[in-house]
């Protein structure tokens, strides 16, 4: 219970700080050509990611982090 409260509080603080990060200027739409490249997104190759994350989560004690959803398996 204490662990979850500490983690939740730290999470909220960090999220708020992300929103408050402000610089002198923000990136304008005409400056975003590099950001539009596929390698600059966080999705990646859907099938590659699916295989890779499935392998790691079925052979390690940890899983998840980048998204929720998707099925489980009895992988051994």
């Amino acid at each position, binding site marked *: 219970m204490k662990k*979850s409260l500490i983690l939740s509080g730290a999470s909220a603080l960090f999220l708020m700080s*992300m929103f408050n*990060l402000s610089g002198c200027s923000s990136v304008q739409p005409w400056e975003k050509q590099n950001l539009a490249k596929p390698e600059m997104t966080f999705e990646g190759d859907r*099938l590659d990611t699916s295989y890779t994350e499935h392998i790691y989560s079925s*052979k390690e*004690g940890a899983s998840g982090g980048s998204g929720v959803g*998707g*099925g489980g398996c*009895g992988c051994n």
Partner: protein
Amino acid sequence: MAMVSTTKTTVFSALIASAALLLPSAKSAYADAAPEQAIVGMKYLNYHDSQSGDTAQTAGMSRDRINVNALSFMGMVPIAGKWSIAATFIEDSITGASPAYHSSGFPSAAANHDASSGASGELRHAGDLTVTRYFSRGTLSLGTSYSQESDYISRGVSLNGTLSTEDKNTTLSLGTAYNSDTISLDKPAVVSSKQQSAPGRKKVFSGLVGVTRVLSKNDIVQLNFTYTHGHGYYSDPYKDPDVRPDHRNMYTVMTRWNHHFEGPDGTARLSYRYYSDTFGVRAHTFDAEYVQPLSKGWELTPMVRFHSQSAADFYVPVGPAELADPSTPTPPPPGAAFFSEDQRLSAFGAFSYGMKVSKDLGRSWLVDVKYEHYQQRYNWCINGHGDPGVANFNIRDIQLGISRKF
């Protein structure tokens, strides 16, 4: 009190590690836009894992374990500029076996014949479908998934949404998912102490909150928090001795940073994840890859990954008797309610490296090949004490893919 101090220190360290990736001073998100093209793709996986007895304690334990051949398909279609539908389908074919305890206790050759002993079924089919609605400053996605093998069925639904600021430099993500699993416990290979006609059931709820932020014209970062609550059947039907708690809560903090280098036109993709659960497992995972486009449509992506985890609270290490004679597992501590000798719940470090090569063939065709090598070792753990009685674990996998946009 000591436990709270340890937790505070660990959380603080995780946040510092995340902050380190956010250091390039923020100047100012990247919102999903409705896709303009449909895409179909196919990918084949050839996977092989093994264990190697490289030390005095594990000498003689080297052997092959599991082989997997898998074929998956995906398709995504945009509709009317405001919707998209995406689906994937996969078939896995699995042969081989995993140990019943630590790195020993493999089923006999006869039991291995049906390829399900120590492995969950011979064939697995899975699919998922996601429908996404695109708004001017956000998205809403509804997903469903289904996975079936001879002894395990998993069904899931999920709802994910994003909301961006007007300049689209900051995006908030929220997601929730529910999974319901059914585990058959009447298969011949299930250990006798767990055999029963009624199946085991597991229900898992998870939630995500995240922020994606454009920092510069060449930098984008993401910070995600997830919480998962599960209750039901968590023990492994094919492992003995193995009795696990009937609930498992998991937390993750993940930071990702993509940086584009204008000179070489390459992109570094870095991520760090901290994981913690009520089994007692704590893990740190670092991922790094570099995407380098070359001439004539070629692209190289080398990658490295390091993962370190502590052991579950109820993990039982290899004892002296089992070291001398691996044919008998180490007895759990007297009176222990929960215990497991599953290598995956031990403390270890894992290092992997790989390379992906892709080629744009023109006319919207893309082919790719990826190779990865992975190894777990007890003495590579940086946040716990590994079990020297467990053999090193190795993975080698190759992926071959092809896709086309319309």
